[in-house]
Structures are given as C-alpha cells and as structure tokens.
C-alpha cells in the first residue's frame, strides 16, 4: 500500500464499498435526513388527524401505527444516525486521525441501517399492519396482542442495535487509539468528549434492548412467560428492561447535541468555552446518572414506595450537571463578542428551548406530580422540547456550521435565518400548547379527543405544518449550497472557530491527516 493519494472511486461503488469516514459520514447524514422526512410525514398524519375532534383521515389502529413508527423512525432513524454521521465526519478531523479506527466495519455499520429500516417500514404492508404499540412497545400489547409483523419489528431492532454497537465501538477505538500526538484527553474538543461518553452508553444499553426484544420473541413464538403473570413472569419486567435502555437512550440523543453547541457557542462568542473541565465532568455525571434513574418513566406502575422515592431523588439530581452545562454556555457568551449567524441562532434556540424542556423534565421527575402528568400531552411537550428543539436544532446548527468545511461552499445566510425563525416560531406554536392540553387532561397516543382540547390541538397542528414546511427551506438551502453555493477557501471559515478541523484546507480533502499533526500546548478549547 503506497500513500493514499487518490481521490474517491467513481459511481455507485464509491458509496457501496467505501471505507472513507467522510463518505460514510455523508451517507449517514443523508440517510438520517430521509428518515427525518419519513418520520416527519408520519407526524404530519398524526397532526392532521388531531386537527379536529372526531375521526377524519385514518382509523384508530392505523393512527397507533403512525405514532409508533414516528417515534421509532425519529429516534432510531433520524436522530441517532445523524449524530453518527457527524461523528464520522468530524471526530477523525478533530483529533487528527487519518480515518476511523476500523473503516470496513464503519461501512458495515452504515449499510445495515437502510435495509433494516426497509424491513421496519415493510411491516406497514403486512397482514395486521405495522407495530401499533408505541415506540416503547410494552408487553403484552407487543407480544400476545401484537400483529404478526412484530417479528420483523423485533429483528429490525436487533439489526439497528448491531449497527449502533459497531458504530460506537468504532468511535471508542478511534478516540482512544487514534489521537494525534499531544492530543491528550483533556484537550479533546467537547464534541469528541460527548461522543466518547455517548458511545459508552450505547455499547452498554443497546445489548439490553436486544435482550428485551429477544425475550419478546420467545414469549411470542416459543411459549415462554417472561411477561405473563400466569406463568410467573411480570409485564412490568418488560418496562424495567426497556427503560434501562430507554432512559440512557434519551441522553444518547442529547449528549452529542451538547457537544455540538459547545463547539458553536464559543466560535460565535469569540471566546473560549467556559469551564471546559466541568463540562467533561458534567457530561460524565449525566451519563452515570442515566443508568440509575430509569423507573421515573414508571411511577404509575405500582412500585413500592421506597423505589418510587429512590428514583425520584436520583432523577432530580440530573438537573445539577445539566445546569452546570447551561450555566457554562451562558458564561461563554457573557462578555464575548457575539454575532448571530445561522448556526449560532440555532444554538441559542437550542439553549432556550432545551432548558425549558429540562424544566418540564424536572417537573415530571416529581413522582406525586407525575401521577397527574404521566402519559398526557405534557410529556409529549416535554420530550419534543428536548428532542426537537434540543437534538434537531443542534443538528441543524451543526450542518450550517460545518457545511462550508465539507463542501467548500457557503450556504445562503438570509435563507438560513429565515429557516431559523420559521422553525423557532413554528416549533413553539406546535409544542407549547401541548403543555396546556396535557395539564388539562388530554392523554397521549389517542386518535381523538374531547371537545375542550380542540382549540389548542388545532393550533398545534398548524404549528406542525409550519415547522414541517420550514424543513423544505433547509433542504433547499443545503442542496443549493452543494451545487451552486458561493465558494469559500479559507481554512478557518468562521473567524472564531477553533480546532484541528479548521486547519485543513476547505473543502476538506478526501484524506486528511495521513500523517498526524502535532498538537501544541495551546489550552483546550470548546
């Protein structure tokens, strides 16, 4: 093997056979955007049916399929792969590595995703319909009472889990083994740190999810009784296992997002990230706590009171490290020289709305109060604040921020700003009223509702269409940039940006850092 100075291969095999982290990152990003549109289309069906009371568009059973697939596709298809794509693109460039540690496996982690989702989506056309038991698939609704397509759902989860585990192992190996000389742990950009910790979480909890669906498979096809009281099992056992995975999962979604804004806010504040070390410790504490709080999703299942109290206290604690992060971001902005390009706008949007979502999370963590909130739209509002305004906003910010580096072309700033404002307003119109209907007593996962919830639901649906439509603008802007954006060639596209990825040429060449750079004694930055 001589020096790798060839460019990418041509044609479809470039993408099918690639071992290049940038190609793979690109595929992840496009795939996740496609899934975002698919999941968004399901959400639009949900919101259209909920536009008015009464059943108009779909049947109740189909509505449940939409809710289920929306949750699954968004979480496993849109958000997680999008951050893996970002990791692929950025981690090697940020730590000065020539590529990911295990490039062929990297390609495999990606390529099992699309057929996996194809299999999941194909359940829509099977007898009895797609899974209709919510993205949390509680037994026995998902076992004895599920349509035959549940078998394919189970295998799809296995396959997606394999993809995540391999992807995470790759990231861990890359960060632990491929850092350039001088790139000590405490100099890693925060995005790398958050992803390293996220990868640990993934390797730890995806197998548990695999265990849970395997037990479902056994209950359905082999007569075991894990989740059936008649045989000595317990349906609630399923929930414990699921949430042991599920709660860390929500931090898997948000930690890389934290990483992204920790890169962007300092860049546009023209000031180093405040409290780098405490950011790292806070991330690690959040990850640790996430393993021991799972039953806050299960306050109403009838746990003994001691368990209830323990899970309440542990959950509340998460507000402390998360608060540290929020305060650090704000202090980073404090007395900086702020400018408000689109990535910064989305980051500020993230900061405000995620914090609101965090506050409602804290409210939910108060067990006696959760007896009233649980399984209402208040919860739906909470998690869209943290996941859409949290994860999706930060992902959007990331795309605007690094797009010039990836493509060598600048996006249209005005269009970006318009995209932000429509998104911001649309998002709030969609999800703010859901707090109200939730508190007033509207359960989630219902295709129809009582008349007193009508006004806010209509508002919410309108907001959803606005927010959804604004994504067309985003797609357009990205494509326009790639084909005809204004060229940029500065290595440092943003004057305040710091980090190795801004030292390579723009657009980033196909192979970077074939020889590792030397990282000097400069202090850690964001």
């Amino acid at each position, binding site marked *: 093997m001589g020096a790798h100075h060839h460019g990418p291969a041509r044609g479809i095999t470039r993408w099918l056979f690639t071992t290049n982290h940038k190609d793979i990152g690109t595929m992840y990003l496009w795939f996740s955007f496609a899934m975002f549109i698919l999941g968004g289309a399901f959400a639009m069906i949900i919101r259209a049916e909920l536009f008015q009371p009464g059943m108009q568009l779909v049947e109740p059973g189909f509505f449940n399929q939409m809710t289920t697939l929306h949750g699954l596709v968004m979480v496993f298809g849109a958000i997680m792969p999008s951050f893996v794509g970002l990791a692929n693109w950025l981690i090697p460039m940020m730590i000065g590595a020539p590529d990911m540690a295990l490039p062929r496996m990297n390609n495999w982690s990606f390529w099992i995703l699309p057929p996996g989702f194809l299999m999941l989506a194909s359940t829509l056309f099977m007898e009895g319909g797609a899974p209709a038991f919510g993205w949390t698939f509680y037994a026995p609704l998902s076992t004895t009472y599920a349509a035959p397509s549940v078998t394919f759902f189970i295998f799809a989860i296995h396959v997606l889990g394999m993809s995540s585990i391999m992807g995470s192992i790759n990231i861990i190996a890359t960060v632990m083994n491929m850092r350039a000389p001088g790139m000590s742990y405490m100099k890693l950009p925060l995005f790398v740190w958050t992803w390293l910790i996220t990868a640990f979480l993934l390797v730890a909890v995806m197998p548990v999810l695999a265990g849970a669906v395997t037990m479902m498979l056994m209950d359905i096809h082999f007569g075991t009784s894990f989740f059936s009281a008649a045989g000595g099992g317990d349906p609630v056992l399923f929930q414990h296992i699921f949430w042991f995975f599920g709660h860390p999962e929500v931090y898997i979604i948000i930690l890389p997002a934290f990483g992204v804004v920790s890169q962007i806010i300092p860049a546009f504040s023209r000031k*180093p990230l405040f409290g780098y070390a405490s950011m790292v410790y806070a991330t690690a504490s959040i990850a640790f706590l996430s393993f021991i709080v799972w039953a806050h999703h299960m306050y109403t299942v009838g746990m003994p009171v001691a368990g209830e109290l323990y899970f309440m206290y542990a959950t509340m604690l998460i507000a402390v490290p998360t608060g540290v992060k929020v305060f650090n971001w704000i202090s980073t902005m404090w*007395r*900086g020289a702020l400018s408000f390009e689109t990535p910064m706008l989305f980051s500020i949007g993230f900061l405000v709305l995620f914090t609101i979502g965090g506050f409602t999370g*804290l*409210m939910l963590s108060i067990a006696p109060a959760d007896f009233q909130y649980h399984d209402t739209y208040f919860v739906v509002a909470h998690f869209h604040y943290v996941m859409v305004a949290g994860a999706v906003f930060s992902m959007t910010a990331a795309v605007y921020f690094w797009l010039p580096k990836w493509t060598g072309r600048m996006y249209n700033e005005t269009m970006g700003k318009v995209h932000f404002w429509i998104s911001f307003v649309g998002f709030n119109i969609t999800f703010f009223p859901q707090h109200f209907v939730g508190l*007033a007593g509207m*359960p989630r996962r219902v295709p129809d509702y009582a008349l007193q919830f009508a006004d806010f639901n209509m508002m919410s649906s309108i907001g959803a269409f606005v927010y959804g439509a604004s994504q067309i603008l985003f797609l357009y802007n990205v494509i326009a940039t790639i084909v005809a954006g204004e060229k940029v060639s500065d290595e440092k596209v943003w004057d305040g940006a710091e980090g190795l990825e801004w030292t390579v040429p723009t657009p980033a060449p196909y192979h970077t850092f074939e020889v590792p750079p030397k990282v000097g004694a400069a*202090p850690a930055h964001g």
Partner: protein
Amino acid sequence: MLCKKIMVFAGILLSSLPWVAQAQNQVNMSPGVTEIGAEIYDLHMLIMIICVIIGLLVFGVMFYSIIYHRKSRGVVPSQFHESTKVEIAWTAVPFFILVAMAVPATSTLLEVYDNDEAELDILITGYQWKWRYEYLDAAGEPVAFFSNLATSQEEIYNTESKGENYLLEVDEPLVIPVDTKVRFLITANDVIHSWWVPEISVKRDAIPGFINEAWSKVTEEGIYRGQCTELCGAYHGFMPVVVHAVSREEFDGWMAAKRAEQASDLAAASVEMSLEALMSEGEAVYNGQCMACHGASGEGGVGKAIAGSSIALGDVNTHMDVSIRGVSGTAMQAFGTQLSDIEMAAVITYQRNAFGNNTGDIVQPADVASYKQG
C-alpha cells in the same frame, strides 16, 4: 435587530399567558376535589414557579449579553474561561434548591401511598376497551358491572354533532360515596391499561395479573371524568372513566337497587326466552362488547368476520366454546366470565342470526349454563 425580534416574541408569549388563562380553555392542572389533589396541585405550582424564576434569571443573563456583548457593538471579547468559585456555587445552589423541592414531594408521595384503612374496596379491571367495577366488601351480594363508552359511532365519525361530553361518557358510571376513603384495587384482564380521573387525583396502571392499590377521598359530590392513559390497542382513546360521587344515602340506595337488579337477572336466567328477546338483547351486547373487534356488521377487524364465519354457521358448541373460553393467544378473550348467561346466550343467538347468518338457531341461557358446567 435580532434581539428586538426575540424580545417581541417573548413579549407576545408572556402577554398571551393571562389571556389564555381567561379563555374557557383549561391551561393548567386542576386541583380537583380531594385533599391530595390540592397538595399535588400546590407541588406542581411550586416547582413550576421555581423553574420559571430560574429560567428568567438564566435567560435574563443570556439576553443581556446578547444585547450588550455583540460584536456589532465593537466589543472586544474577554478571554476568561474558568472560575472554580462560581462553578462550585452553581453546582451547590441548584442542589439545595432540589433538596427543598424533594421535601414536600416526599411527604405528598407518602400520603398517596397510604392505602390502609379504606372504608370501601372497589376492584377495577381493565379490558380491551372497557372497565369492569366490582364492589368488594359491600355487605350482601357483590355488585359488579361493565362500563362502556356511550358515545355513538356517528358522533365519532362526524355524521352527527358531538355532545357535550363527547368521548367522556359511559353507559354505567362508577358510583362512590363522598367523604369516604375508597380504595381502588386496579388490575387488567388482557393488556396494560391505566385508570385515571384527574379530578380525584388517581392514576394507576392496570397490570394483567397484578393488583395495584390507590385511594381517594372525594369531598364534593359531582361527576368526574377521565380516560384510560396507557396505550392498550386500537381503541385506547375510546375507553373513558366516569365517576359519580354521591352522598352516602344516595350511594346506599343505588347499591340496593343495583343488587335487586342483579337478583332479577339471575332469576331470569332459568326462563326460556323468545328469539326476539334474545336478538334485541344480543344486539345490545354485540354492539357493546364485540363490535369493536368484529365490526358493526360482523365484517371483522381485529377479530375475524362473524358474517359467514364457519363457526357462527356451524356447530353451536364450538361457537359457545370460542365465545365463553376465548381463543388462546389471540385478542379473542374468554367472555364467559364477563357476560351473564343471558347476555352470552343472547349474543350467540344474535351472531347466528344477524349479518346474513340466518341459521335460525336459538341458544338459551340454560344452554350456556349447562355448557359452562361442562
């Protein structure tokens, strides 16, 4: 420019709050009609207000720097990036705020869990998609009945205008006495449901095979409405809970009447019934119990089609077997324990003679009883 937009938007949001509060749209949790409910409400408000205050402080600082520390004002960025003192402070202060929140939360939680010394026990069982109530320790014969959604399909499918309590009305509500500590023993027959009435502050999951406890002491007479809050299949959204809280006397009267009704039903079970009587009763039972799965005209859905079904046209014993004992491992439950012999006889007769299944067969309550006997 930018900050102005944000301020304007925030202003609109804030100023709209009181307006929304005044409109008839309920925007907040209801304190309900129990002491616990009021406590939970206070807790909810307390946490929310603390969060709002923290939020105002945090966002205040942020907007301050957004306005005054912008590059366009020509500021020079300072380069500080650490301060152990501040960092310790903002770790410790939130921690103590949380401790302060945990104190009232703990005491409320302990009260919620104080399930002892109830004066009345009611066993609540969730079914796809209805509730069954059984008064356990009332003196005399136990009283039990099912409570089904009463909203018509026409209202749901928008061919009739929707009534005031659309989706929140049932054929037979749960009746409880006020000022009495009522304990609810909550379980389920098939999948997990959750029994929730916001106003009386009870939400507890109904887990098949396990009994959960909850209690309530309602202080005001009235009708309180709620819904099933755990996804339980296709018609999860159509599984309301209605509770009538009445005075002690009214409750006793209702109980006596209910008991008399059950006794007369029992007596009727040994009498031969006419085809018409069975058919009209059967139609009612079918629409209440079977239609959700087998379709309004027996065309099937979650369940198999009844119209033209080989079982409904074939041997009566098989039909009774399926209806009474259910089909193992499917959504078709054992209805033998859910329906009285009369209802069972009626619905089987109905299925064998409706939807073009003109077998002319009549199944009498006594047949069902003897089938059940073995």
